[in-house]
């Protein structure tokens, strides 16, 4: 392991390397406590560089963290740049501010910096550093050398490397990582102890701050990020579910059997060959020793895919028809049928209206608000026509003119400021979160302020005319391209030319709209973000979790769980001409999408590889519509035409307490995470006792009342109710319990209401599973 090039630092450096390894093994998880004899060896006379040696210590000790001196207001008058991304600023703060009293060049040990960090003087942050520890020596040495300032000529960090890079690990085992920093002068050194570590799946593995990885009893994939300075490196690992050769052989045999079965299945051979999804998933299951759950029955699949594609429950007759239809390729046919239903466009338009922040709040008049309806309709029409996705996005981003005449321009109504352009575009279309880079280098990704403001520059010429002068959010605004505008780097003051994330500056003629260049860059076949983000978004919609998770947080430090699968889907999507319906067909026809949600011994604990269906609660609108459908009593919303379903509402500002408590988003961000499925007491109270639910249960023309006055037998009633609510036939014990209840309840109407309510309140109803 050649960690160190000794060209400039001499023998003592070799010793540092040696000691860090010892420290790493013997003093896991501490930042202090290095034995003295080692530290003396470390006290080298060679020059200590502020940027690459002093600052990393401050970072490691947490001095410049967001809860301490790194926050915008500093702490007790001492402020450092967040995570040490601005060494010049930190140098000023440490050496010059406060009349230089933070350092004592004559008596380095008396320096406030060291006295506070070692808590020899009272320090709000407590003792962070042991006197005479290795880090202490470095800081002391830098002070005694006269606290040299960072200079352009100092060697700067070029990259960091992590070893091992990837590894298969057992559960409850540990592994020491080593991190090496390579510098511009050709040297490198071990920075294992100075690096910051973070595990992306703390349930599976944790990492100490000296880089020791420890796996838990859980199985699965995880990554550990190591950061030193502005550079990152990632360690990828897997803890297989089975690792014994005999176990693995049995699992492989089982997977072979499933595959053979699939190939025999009448509707499958074509799929297996054309649909790379299955083979990528099977490969991963083999690698991790996972056996997927069994294939779900027809009733479960029908309900699942209907909810996912059209946001609507299957009706009683659809259930009966599907369950009795002959077997051959009916799942495929069902998917195709659903994609042609008008509800498909409505449901996905709702999803896009969230992401595109088609916000209704904040308008005082219906005239002002009219725009949300126009935009909602435009989105819906685009989806119904199956407009290619790249075109859909391009029409939004490059929109100009009247918002009333060109509805995609309404996106610019909510998204108004440089920060909003950058963050919405990055999160919605590129699947990355760049917010951090507005103020400082992103701590877990390569994004810098130049990336952030370079993207902001793409939108700097967006001009606006008209609208309501007195309202914060005007209505019919004209969006046009201004002649010129500049965006400056907030720190360096340099003019930043429009450029895409991670790409080169656009070459633009005088009259070229940089937004057009951005849209073109996105839809280029080799764009690393655009297609991947969309296929991942759709995958998460159907599978309950993204291949990159969370879906808008792609980072080298947060890798996809199955990169081949993600790439395969993205390539297919691009080759199809960004065909959204085709993408849905590919995902919904996959083997994984058909699996049961219940785990078995071979995949219990799997939350990453889609070896079973991950259940999730229905979105608020789908749930409310579902209840209305079962009880045959529509919801009456204000200010929209009667009969409008919740999934068809033009914006989030149509009053409905049910939707609010069940997590309808306020459309304040482009993140789908704003829609929450966290359960809450208010939801349960709404379901148990709201006047709206009571009304639906008791309305004369409603299903409950109609059943009550019918002369059907309790058994028939129970069968009908189960089919209607759960889209399946009751099990014998359920039929038994329900009929017993009818027998015990003298009031037939009440019995119908109670049974219906109880089934609607079950997780089986509220969840897509």
């Amino acid at each position: 392991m050649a960690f160190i090039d000794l060209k400039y630092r001499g023998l003592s450096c070799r010793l540092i390397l040696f000691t860090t390894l010892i420290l790493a093994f013997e003093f896991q998880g501490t930042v202090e406590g290095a034995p003295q004899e080692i530290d003396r060896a470390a006290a080298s006379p060679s020059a200590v560089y502020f940027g690459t040696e002093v600052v990393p210590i401050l970072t490691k000790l947490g001095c410049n963290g967001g809860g301490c001196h790194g926050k915008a207001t500093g702490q007790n008058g001492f402020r450092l740049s967040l995570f040490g991304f601005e060494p010049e600023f930190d140098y000023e703060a440490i050496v010059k501010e406060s009349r230089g009293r933070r350092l004592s060049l004559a008596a380095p040990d008396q320096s406030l910096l060291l006295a506070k960090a070692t808590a020899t003087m009272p320090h709000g942050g407590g003792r962070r550093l042991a006197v005479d520890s290795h880090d202490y020596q470095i800081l002391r040495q830098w002070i005694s050398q006269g606290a040299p300032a960072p200079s352009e000529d100092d060697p700067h960090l070029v990259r960091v490397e992590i070893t091992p890079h990837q590894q298969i690990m057992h559960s409850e085992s540990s592994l020491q990582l080593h991190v090496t920093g390579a510098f511009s002068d050709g040297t490198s050194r071990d920075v294992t102890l100075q690096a910051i570590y973070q595990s992306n799946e703390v349930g599976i593995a944790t990492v100490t701050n000296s880089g020791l990885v420890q796996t838990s009893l859980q199985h699965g994939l995880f990554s550990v990020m190591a950061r030193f300075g502005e550079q990152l490196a990632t360690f990828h690992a897997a803890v297989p579910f089975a690792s014994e050769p005999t176990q693995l052989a049995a699992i492989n045999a089982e997977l072979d059997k499933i595959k053979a079965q699939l190939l025999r299945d009448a509707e499958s051979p074509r799929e297996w060959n054309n649909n790379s999804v299955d083979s990528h998933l099977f490969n991963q299951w083999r690698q991790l020793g996972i056996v997927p759950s069994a294939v779900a029955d027809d009733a479960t699949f029908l309900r699942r895919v209907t909810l996912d594609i059209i946001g609507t429950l299957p009706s009683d007759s659809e259930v009966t028809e599907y369950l009795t239809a002959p077997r051959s390729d009916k799942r495929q046919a069902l998917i195709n049928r659903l994609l042609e239903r008008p509800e498909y466009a409505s449901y996905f338009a709702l999803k896009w209206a969230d992401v595109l922040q088609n916000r209704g709040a904040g308008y005082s008049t219906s005239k002002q608000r009219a725009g949300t309806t126009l935009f909602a309709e435009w989105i819906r029409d685009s989806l119904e026509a199956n407009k290619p996705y790249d075109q859909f996005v391009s029409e939004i981003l490059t929109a100009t003119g009247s918002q009333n005449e060109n509805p995609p321009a309404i996106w610019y109504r909510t998204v108004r400021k440089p920060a909003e352009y950058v963050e919405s575009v990055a999160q919605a279309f590129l699947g990355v979160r760049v917010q951090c880079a507005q103020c400082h280098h992103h701590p877990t990704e390569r994004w810098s302020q130049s990336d952030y403001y370079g993207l902001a520059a793409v939108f700097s010429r967006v001009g606006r005319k008209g609208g309501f002068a007195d309202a914060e959010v005007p209505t019919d605004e004209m969006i046009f391209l201004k002649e010129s505008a500049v965006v400056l780097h907030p720190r360096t003051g340099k003019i930043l030319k429009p450029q895409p994330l991670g790409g080169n500056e656009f070459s633009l003629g005088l009259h070229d709209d940089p937004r057009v260049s951005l849209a073109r860059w996105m839809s280029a076949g080799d764009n690393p973000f655009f297609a991947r983000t969309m296929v991942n978004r759709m995958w998460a919609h159907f599978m309950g979790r993204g291949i990159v998770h969370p879906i808008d947080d792609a980072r080298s430090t947060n890798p996809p769980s199955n990169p081949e699968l993600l790439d395969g889907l993205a390539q297919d999507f691009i080759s199809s001409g960004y065909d959204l319906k085709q993408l849905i067909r590919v995902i919904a026809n996959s083997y994984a999408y058909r699996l049961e949600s219940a785990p078995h011994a071979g995949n219990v604990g799997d939350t990453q590889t889609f070896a079973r269906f991950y259940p999730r609660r229905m979105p608020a609108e789908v749930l409310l519509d579902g209840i209305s459908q079962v009880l045959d009593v529509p919801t009456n919303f204000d200010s929209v035409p009667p009969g409008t379903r919740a999934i068809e509402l033009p914006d989030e500002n149509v009053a409905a307490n049910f939707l609010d408590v069940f997590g309808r988003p306020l459309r304040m961000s482009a993140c789908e995470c704003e829609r929450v499925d966290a359960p809450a007491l208010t939801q349960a109270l709404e379901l148990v006792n709201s006047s709206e639910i009571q009304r639906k249960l008791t309305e004369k023309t409603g299903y409950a009342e109609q059943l009550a006055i019918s002369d059907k037998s309790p058994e028939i009633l129970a069968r009908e109710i189960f089919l209607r609510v759960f889209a399946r036939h009751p099990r014998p014990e359920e039929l038994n319990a329900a009929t017993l209840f009818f027998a015990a309840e003298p009031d037939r109407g009440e019995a119908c209401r109670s049974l219906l309510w109880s089934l609607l309140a079950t997780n089986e109803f509220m969840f897509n599973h």
Partner: protein
Amino acid sequence: MSRVAKDFRYPQHLTRRRWLKAGSLVTMAMGLGELLRLRVLGGELRGKNQDTAVILIWLTGGLSHMDTYDMKPNAALEYRGDFWPIRTNVPGMEVCEHLPLHAKIADRFTLVRSLSHSFGDHDGAHKRVLTGRIPKSPSGFVNDAPSVGCIVGKLREHLRPEVLNFTSGQRADTNADSYSQGAGYLGRAYAPFLIPGDPSDPKFSIPNLSIVPQLTSRLNDRRSLLRSFDRIRHEVDHSGVLEASSRFQQKALSLLTSDAVRNAFDLSQEESTLRDRYGRNAYGQQALLARRLVEAGTSFANVVMEHPGGASPANSIYNWDCHAVNCHVFDDARWRLPYFDKAVSALIEDIYTRGLDRKIMVIVMGEFGHTPRVSYQKGTGTGILQPGRDHWPAAMSLLVSGGGMRTGQVIGSTNALGEHPKDRPLSPNDLWATAYRHLGIDTEHSFPDYSGRPMPILTDGTPIAELL
């Protein structure tokens, strides 16, 4: 019915009672597991000042400090206004002459006169004060970060699953966002449980908690049915959503079928004399209701005091927003302050009498102060020239009582004209740091926002030492 029963293969002697009994066995069996799960979930914050609460009396529109808690009798007439200060039972501490009941119990509260911030409109100021953060936009009441109450509710949720952790009493046609009580990135589920309307109104009832009469006897049936049909195993879902969803269902049913929480809303259980002492109006009964809710386990009871109810003078305004165009600031105060004086003083007296003064911290404030200098304009309602005061975030006063805090003192001061803090300038976050300390909440704890960025509960603010 008998015809139907005859078709039926099951024993006809099965009764409702018997059926329910079968259900309750299920309850017991599930109860234990549930309890164990809760214990795990609640483990984190256990033992840290759990039995504490905050009542926030929110004076929307902003309390005119110059006419209430920060009198300037020596200032020129156009500043000091119509009113004079009176002495209180704490030497040197003065309040407005229209707050005589405050004056009798000044030893039981502290006035803070040196709070300020920089948001001059209602919406921005609401967000600034109630979230403890600089809002992304100065306009609109929708929070981008959770309000203090949401954070408290979220952190108390697992400790106190059987109660309404965060409630907000406010005007009937409003929602959580109307007063910036929204939950921001915590999600709407953590918005307050709303108590809309005037509790002194005989028709006052709580939506979703007041049971529809015909439902009362049926809830136990439904609860048992729900249990017997909820067959999806919790193991199916590793995110915990499924499990928590069942937990809240059962909790809601417990709330509705047990008396504890519903009783908290039943003000008729209070002594008539005490109800009179609080005042038989919106202010008084809202304050009393807040005390009852906190006794029933609520951790953060927000009370938005707008209109005390009943007839109001023509030159008054609905809430505390005392611009000249809205009202005659002094006539409005003459009418409004007696209701306010009664309600606040009764609440303070009551919690001390009941020995709840260590448990409950009471905060009385609005989103900002009002301009120290009186301005004259034609009232839109009255059509005549009248005095008023505009928005003034540069200086505001508030009252703190209970919470085991030091009382009978004034903290900070404003300059001679009441324009800005002179001594001890404080920010809203210093107040929240104090309140969180009382609640045992670590303000460095963070929640991720929509971009995954960890947002600490407070980024700044120090507990106000004089109160501790």
